[in-house]
């Protein structure tokens, strides 16, 4: 069984990476290899890391409120790189209307601050496995 590789990125200008680090640890404890890239990533940096690391899934932690600006750009760049099939998750404080909009754009799932870690882990594994199998 091969280890799933997941990129956890923090695009945008907010300086809080606690949530991203908690998710990274939960995924590690679930046996995944988590590439963590640090704060203040541009969508270009996220897409480039996803390409070089050949990840099975991408998690974006966005607390700045700029999720509607940043997420479509990441998706677009990943598609241009031939990674349109890699599931992208968004975590943060996202109003329900925005979450719907993000899912319509192709985001696999949106996680709010209260989402249990077990649900996050299960969703990432299911989405990544589906791509790996296809």
């Amino acid at each position, binding site marked *: 069984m*091969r*280890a799933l*590789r997941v990129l956890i990125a923090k695009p945008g200008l907010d300086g809080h990476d606690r949530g991203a680090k908690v998710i*990274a*640890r939960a*995924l*590690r*404890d*679930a*046996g*995944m*290899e*988590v*590439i*963590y*890239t*640090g704060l203040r*990533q*541009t969508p*270009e*940096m996220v897409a*480039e*890391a996803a*390409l*070089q*690391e*050949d990840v099975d899934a991408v998690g974006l932690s966005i607390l700045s409120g700029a999720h509607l600006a940043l997420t479509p750009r990441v998706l677009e760049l990943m598609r241009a*790189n*031939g*990674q349109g099939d890699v599931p992208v998750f968004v975590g943060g404080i996202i109003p329900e209307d925005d979450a719907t909009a993000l899912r319509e754009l192709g985001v696999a799932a949106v996680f709010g601050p209260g989402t249990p870690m077990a649900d996050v882990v299960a969703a990432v594994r299911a989405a990544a496995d589906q791509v790996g199998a296809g």
Partner: protein
Amino acid sequence: MNPEHILAGDRRALARWLTALEDERREAQEVLAALFAQTGRAQITGVTGAPGSGKSTLVAALARGWRARGQTVAILAVDPSSPFSGGAILGDRVRMQALSGDPGVFIRSMASRGALGGLAATTADLARALDAAGFDQVVIETVGAGQSEIDVARAAQTTIVIEAPGLGDDIQAIKAGILEIADLLVVTKADQPGAEATVRALRAALELESAARSAGVAPGWAVPVLTTIAPTSAGVSEVLDTLAAHQAFLRSSGAGSGREVKRLQRELELRLRQRVWQRFALGLDSDVLAEWAGRIHRREIDLESAVKSVLASTHIPEHE
């Protein structure tokens, strides 16, 4: 996984090939075999040192320097896998953000996947793959677990051992084995107190080392001790010059070929051992082993005699 795409600089194809090599997939090895003649061109440098000593920051600064000199750079950054979950957090890219957006740089994070010598079992193959893909410089950053991470000397041509200040004058603090693999010592964080003392301690330890080795492992190369402040690139061009000088030394003295043959012999042995074991293991039946264990437990037979009996009775398949 088309070798043509990889040679043409297709980064997605390269990234997927690296994953397949990490997962030890057969088709990935076939591509490596097809491109093996393209390897041996890159300069492969290893960087090792204790956790948090500044490896990633130095690697990023070296990469910036090589780019300014017109060379392309690939980085392999290894971090430890958790022995409990098998998962890993690979965080070396955090210090390498400034390299993003440069098509002449390729950064790949690797988990050690249970290997203990500072690299993953497949790191040498990934370095070869990046060499075949045409990068001028390939840098390997080891796990910083504070153990003797000496495997890097078996994957790189030139090994940089780094020490952050804080060592004082105490040469006992220098890990056994680590000086023997150093072609170059770098004291990082030279802006921090104690850097001078660390330089002195390393020089003293090197002197003892070379006195103890009568002829020296690499006659003709005196291991330099340099200092850097990687965030500002202070001292980095001296490191780059010294790396180039070491490569020139390896070529002109013939030591480079000698070392590579030794490295390859070791790798050949490792792979053979693994292969022989895998084939042997195919013929082993765990129920039969459990029976033997029971007999040993009842003191009907001793361990060594049981090993001989199992060896004598196990059929080793011709093929895997």
